[in-house]
């Protein structure tokens, strides 16, 4: 049950990233009129305090949403539960690759990291606390507003740059990062190969790219699609297209074509007894890969 729940939430997350927003949870109705005042906000400009044009009622509405993104018992609970496991992989992979001190409280200090599809900033904030200079991007402006509002509350995360944009646009702007993260995004992307090229283009030579997704395995099919969508009806049918999932082999291949050599890979396994995720070598459902960009591309 819990596993499906996880998948449901992960999927919810993705759908937001894809800008195919469905009123899946109650808070959605808050969005109805909230986006208009926020449109005056220029992306890329960091906003230490909410813009003056924003009235307090609107702010309260955003706050309610942000709290649900950040409510550990709310709809995003499974994502929160999974987050430490993803971060454990990212931390150790980046420490190894960039030769950072794993005993440091801020091992990622000095690294510029892009979090592509950042949602409410669940990954961006911990990366910033670990010392990284983080840019979180998401195609959904509402997510960006939420992420920005939440991150401002802590000086350790208020330095995160949140932009409502896409990876492709960042490439056009000529932005480059030491490390680029795209967690639980690629399975919802129309052209995974093109997407990987964009990620590669955002990564500096010898930089790191980290991608996590769902495998196109029978187990993933059973849990993410048959159970979650058809039997339990947690998700509208058609949320996931199984055929668009990537197997680890395919991911390695398209990353290689984009100039990224996958160096580390791990699976996430869920223990229904403890309710915790852990890293394992079982990549049959959820998996994460870290690759480095070769020098000779572009």
């Amino acid at each position, binding site marked *: 049950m819990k596993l499906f729940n996880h998948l449901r939430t992960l999927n919810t997350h993705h759908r937001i990233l894809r800008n195919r927003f469905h009123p899946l949870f109650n808070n959605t109705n808050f969005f109805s009129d909230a986006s208009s005042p926020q449109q005056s906000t220029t992306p890329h400009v960091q906003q*230490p305090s909410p813009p003056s044009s924003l009235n307090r009622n609107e*702010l309260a509405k*955003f706050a*309610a949403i942000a709290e649900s993104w950040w409510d550990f018992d709310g709809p995003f609970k499974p994502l929160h539960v999974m987050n430490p496991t993803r971060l454990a992989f990212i931390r150790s992979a980046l420490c190894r690759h960039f030769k950072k001190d794993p*005993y440091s409280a801020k091992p990622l200090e000095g690294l510029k990291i892009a979090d592509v599809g950042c949602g409410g900033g669940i990954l961006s904030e911990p990366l910033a606390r670990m010392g990284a200079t983080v840019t979180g991007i998401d195609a959904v402006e509402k997510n960006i507003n939420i992420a920005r509002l939440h991150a401002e509350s*802590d*000086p350790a995360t208020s330095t995160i740059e949140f932009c409502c944009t896409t990876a492709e646009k960042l490439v056009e702007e000529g932005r480059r990062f030491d490390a680029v993260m795209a967690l639980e995004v690629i399975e919802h992307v129309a052209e995974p190969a093109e997407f990987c090229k964009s990620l590669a283009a955002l990564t500096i030579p010898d930089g790191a790219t980290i991608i996590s997704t769902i495998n196109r395995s029978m187990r993933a099919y059973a849990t993410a699609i048959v159970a979650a969508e058809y039997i339990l009806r947690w998700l509208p049918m058609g949320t996931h297209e199984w055929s668009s999932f990537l197997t680890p082999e395919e991911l390695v291949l398209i990353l290689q074509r984009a100039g990224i050599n996958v160096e580390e890979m791990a699976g996430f396994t869920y223990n229904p007894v403890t309710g915790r995720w852990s890293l394992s070598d079982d990549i049959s459902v959820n998996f994460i890969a870290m690759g480095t960009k070769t020098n000779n591309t572009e």
Partner: protein
Amino acid sequence: MNKVMKKTVSNVCALKIPRKFFCSETVKVAGSTDFVPSNEHEKRPIISEVIPEYDIAIVGGGMVGMSLACFLASMPMTKQLSVAIIDSNPALGSGISIQREDPPDPRVSTVTPASISFLQDAGAWKYVEQNRHAYFKKMQVWDYTGFGYARYDAGDVNKDFLGCVAENKVLHSALLSCVKDSDFKTTFYPLRLTSMTLNTNSMSTVKESIPSKELPSAQGHTSKLQLSDGSSIYAKLVVGADGGKSRVRELAGFKTTGWNYSQNAIICTVEHTSANHCAWQRFLPSGPIALLPMGDNFSNIVWTMSPTESNDRKSITEEMFLKDVNSALDDGHGPHPMSSSLGTRDLFSWLKMDATLSANEFFEIPPKAIRMASKRMVFPLSLRHANSYASKRVVLIGDAAHTIHPLAGQGVNLGFGDAFSLSRVIAEGIALGSDIGEVNLLKKYETDRKPANVAMMALLDGFQKAYAVDFGPFNFLRAAAFNGANLISPLKRRIISYASGENKLPIFFGA
């Protein structure tokens, strides 16, 4: 990650952390007022409009609160944290000076080997050893019926000692010295906590009519603590280590379950003609009496009895009280147990393991107390347990979370265990970039500690109920007493493993 964490814990020296952390960055405290705190910590950073901000506020600088500070100071992940310690005891700031010649304080703790190893790793135990303390290698437990007795030796379980008795002030000052001698950033506030704003729903504050300059973002990530002199501080995490009557617990709205036992304990210090090296406990009809070695020629008495008896025994003359003590530890209320060669051991011999350990040695009579070395103090016995240990930005440790006994004994060991566990959870949270006040993180501590504490409490309470007289302050001895009294073996193992602080490893019967 576990691997990384373990390495982290062991590799204390590999530290390359910039001193700059949360607190030394530009901190927005009150809306538009930005300030950069100076690196030197002012003793009383109370400047109007500027509210100091800390990573952790430990409310209660007693043994458990200070042990948390020690554990945090000893780990690379946590030693850069800025910590405020709030305790109305002014001695915390100046330090507690202890003279070896000082008369022994009757408030003592029996520190288990497990707690000792935590304190050794944190670098605090060496300070304990500079003052009066007493390791004991042997103990003897018997009861007034003359029916059985048990003797234990540390050698039986391949340990150097079974425990160590130290005065609470010695433990406390050791922990204080340990924190002061480290480069850990702590600020002492010799004040009381008066109120607390937790901001659990930080952003909903927008709805309230707050002066426009105080935006919700200003303190969404912190708790605000109001102190008794009217000043305030902010902290990402508030740790309630303020004892059985915890103010933090009350302010944060944690509910408790508990009851009082209609028993009191008298504690005092007595002197012998020569040093006592053994821990003794005898079960009397009204409750157990324990004689614990304290170092030099002193011993500590912990004697449980009904409230009427305790009031009587508190008011009688010292001579009469000494006479009562000596009689209670000798042949008062009943005869000495028969020597092991006669019958007693045969009763237990079906328990093969026991035969190899206990009862091989002859019964001994404890050394006589010749003089009172302290006043007699009386404490009621009670049990209290917080239904939850953690919520957003608040966590309870030690007696604030669970009172098993007003005397130290096992209580302080549970408290050290809590502090140790919490420090590890915080370190793990920092390693993974978590907000250390997040309830999701803090619940890990609760999950880690609650079963251990509840099990201990249930065991003790079960004993209290089943053997109404047998609720003693010294669980280790009592557990052994039950062994002597021939309880069921698996239960015994659990008791003793708990009592010795090694929850998973029954040290006595390590088969």
